[in-house]
């Protein structure tokens, strides 16, 4: 089996208020970082997965997302898989 390195990004659906992003945006503005117009903060989850091929690795990661890593009530996710452990 090969090792795959998967990156899952999980973020709040656009309709859900993201207070963390909002706070960072405000802080940046008042610290004089102009030009930053929108901030949203999500999670970035890096997994090392053993699988025979990329598809299998991705399927495993998606299963983990569906079951645990992401709550569809308020979140969406995206998966990116590449070869090699971290």
């Amino acid at each position: 089996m090969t090792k795959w390195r998967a990156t899952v990004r999980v973020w709040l659906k656009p309709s859900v208020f993201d207070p963390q992003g909002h706070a960072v945006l405000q802080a940046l503005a008042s610290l004089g970082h102009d030009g930053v117009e929108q901030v949203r903060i999500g999670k970035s989850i890096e997994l090392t997965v053993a699988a025979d091929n990329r598809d299998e690795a991705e399927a495993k990661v998606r299963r983990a997302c569906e079951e645990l890593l992401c709550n569809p009530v308020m979140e969406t996710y995206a998966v990116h898989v590449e070869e090699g452990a971290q």
Partner: protein
Amino acid sequence: MRWAVIVFPGSNCDEDAALAIDRVLGDPVDLVWHDRSDLSAYDAIILPGGFSYGDYLRSGAIARFAPAIAGVRAAVQRGALVLGICNGFQVLTEAGLLPGALLVNDHLQFRCELAELRVENAETPFTLDYAPGARIRIPIAHRDGRYHADAATLSQLQRERRAVLRYVQNPNGSAQDIAAVLGANGRILGLMPHPERAVAEWMRSTDGARMFTSMHRYVEQQGASLAASAEGVGRLG
């Protein structure tokens, strides 16, 4: 009637809940380890506050897989009452037993204070002993207490009077000031405030006690205790 308080490794209000049952009602109450799925002996089950599994990913995300949650599902089918307090509420939403989700407070801080609540529906098994529209005071203590649900769900909750308690002053950004949500079958309640922390004068409020007396009265009114029949079946089998 007989109560169970489910204990996850990171629960920390389990003993408080059991103590409150004892203080208020004197009913028998068991602390039940999360790996147990047979909850047939209980008329009411409390999912207590705390940080079930550390809650690093999302509050309640991991706890929903515990065998005890399967037991809770079965108990609900059977007609038992389920009360999810704080983390217990979070677990119930993650498990899909209650609609919506609890997100980080809009101010991003943990908040512990005595909160004023309005009883929106005094005809549930959990609120029988409150006067309709009563203002009560019960402490909150959470960081992830902002109730969120999509618009359709919110209007359904409104229609069916399932937003049982609302904050008088919203402390966390919850949609429609919702502090407590009743399940569709009317036998599951999830709430962020901690009724077990408001059951004695020295705690600064006794308003939480009536939630437990309500549940007790409801179960007693159901006639023959469910536990007795369940145990009866057990003995036969």
